[in-house]
């Protein structure tokens, strides 16, 4: 476990009321790497992801134990502003969730809530974000139309652009392609590979091939516990745990 981890959890457990959803998870995410979280449904992948930007805070009765560190500082400390954390740790959701606004206003949302008013600067940053999300050419002539008129894959890339617009350091992705068709999925995967240079990306996926294709590291979660984490090619070729092997070879899950 290196000290240069961008993000890290130490002995982190998570509770929904009395029931323990995550148990004692210690894992480090290196800067500018893609890490996949894999595991069967209900194993806690999404819950884990949402502890990293404190999205679970909005659910009543949840509790975190242990530490979650961003650049070595705990994000759950009392003096930490949750809004600040979410600005540094962006998130893309499973289902594309554009706002009922125009594409421009959608992507500009995060910038505006930070107080950016200058029209030219807003435009430049919206354009740069849409380009970074590889959707600019498809939407540049319809920035004043609603994103709801786009295809699911396009919507998801607009949502990625929206997350990128505020220049997060870490990008969390919760099965970002699971609601999309194969071609749209391929585009999202290409995009993730392209984004790796600038962002620390943590992605939850159900799709093992996807994890193998896009990630540098892979972590296998099972029943709220971290079973194994390592280089993706190692996990997929020589997993050290029997359970991991069973899962990736499709014997269960």
């Amino acid at each position: 476990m290196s000290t240069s981890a961008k993000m890290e959890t130490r002995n982190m457990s998570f509770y929904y009321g009395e029931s323990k959803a995550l148990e004692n998870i210690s894992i480090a995410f290196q800067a500018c790497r893609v890490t996949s979280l894999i595991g069967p449904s209900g194993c806690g992948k999404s819950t884990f992801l949402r502890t990293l930007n404190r999205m679970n805070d909005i659910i009543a009765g949840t509790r975190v134990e242990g530490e979650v560190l961003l650049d070595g500082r705990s994000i759950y400390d009392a003096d930490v502003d949750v809004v600040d954390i979410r600005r540094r740790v962006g998130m893309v959701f499973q289902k594309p969730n554009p706002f009922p606004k125009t594409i421009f206003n959608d992507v500009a949302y995060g910038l505006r809530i930070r107080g950016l008013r200058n029209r030219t600067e807003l435009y430049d940053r919206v354009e740069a974000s849409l380009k970074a999300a590889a959707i600019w050419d498809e939407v540049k002539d319809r920035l004043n139309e609603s994103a709801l008129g786009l295809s699911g894959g396009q919507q998801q890339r607009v949502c990625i652009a929206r997350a990128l617009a505020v220049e997060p350091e870490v990008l969390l992705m919760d099965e970002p392609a699971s609601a999309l068709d194969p071609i749209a999925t391929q585009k999202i995967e290409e995009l993730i590979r392209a984004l790796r240079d600038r962002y620390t990306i943590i992605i939850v996926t159900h799709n093992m091939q996807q994890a193998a294709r896009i990630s540098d590291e892979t972590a296998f979660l099972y029943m709220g516990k971290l079973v194994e984490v390592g280089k993706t090619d190692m996990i997929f070729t020589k997993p050290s745990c029997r359970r991991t092997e069973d899962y990736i070879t499709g014997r269960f899950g």
Partner: protein
Amino acid sequence: MERRKKRKLIEAGAFLIVRSAALVIVLSLAVVVGFILFHGASAVNWTFLTQPPREAMTAGGIFPAILGTLYLTAGAILVAFPAGVASAVYLSEYAREGRLVRIVRLAINNLAGVPSVVFGLFGLALFVVFFKFGSSILSGSLTLGLLILPVIIGASEEALKAVPRTYREASLALGATRWQMIHRVVLPAAFPGILTATILGIGRAAGETAPIMFTAAAFYTARLPTSIFDEVMALPYHIYVLATAGTHIEQTRPLQYATALVLIALVLAVNLVAILLRARMRRRRMS
């Protein structure tokens, strides 16, 4: 074979009953409106709409009452809309279920169940007498505002709750504060529903008689109000007066129906404007 026949018969019977029930509603409305139209339409003309009553209210128009009802309704909305929407936001977005929320909800439900004449007496005691606003547009608007508050809170809360969770999550995940999320994403998305709540409130406020009887409505005044401390005539109260308290009840029947017709038309017109506005907003959002 016999069982199949029986099953079909029951099916047809059930369908007939539920469909009839639905038709009865349409029919009731048609009869009410038709009846009022039949008896009142002939008395509605330009003079009726633009002149004050004359000759002990047996002739002339109802202009002061139209104006009064518009003022009172607008005043009630001015009172109830901000307070109602704010309460709904608190209940739906900020409050966590607990004792305070239970008390607030209980209060709202009970407020909704209070008979309107009690609101009238309450308004009389508090606004007219205690605050010394007198019988005035101000007192009447405040009283009507309280009356429609539960309607606006209830429907606004529904509208807020119907905003998808994904909007909220997307907004928070981008680093929005709760308030930024509410006023930039949740409220705009809920606005068509909140507007519907307001329409309901307008209809209710415009039609009530008892709450304004002691707090705002004048039996007769040809003078138009010049400030919020003036008494006004109002359409529902005018109908009540003509139908029960006048000396020429039979003679003024057409005027009573005509006044009712104007009241209904007024409410429908306001509703229509709000519905068109809502449709336009929805279209713009979807395009």
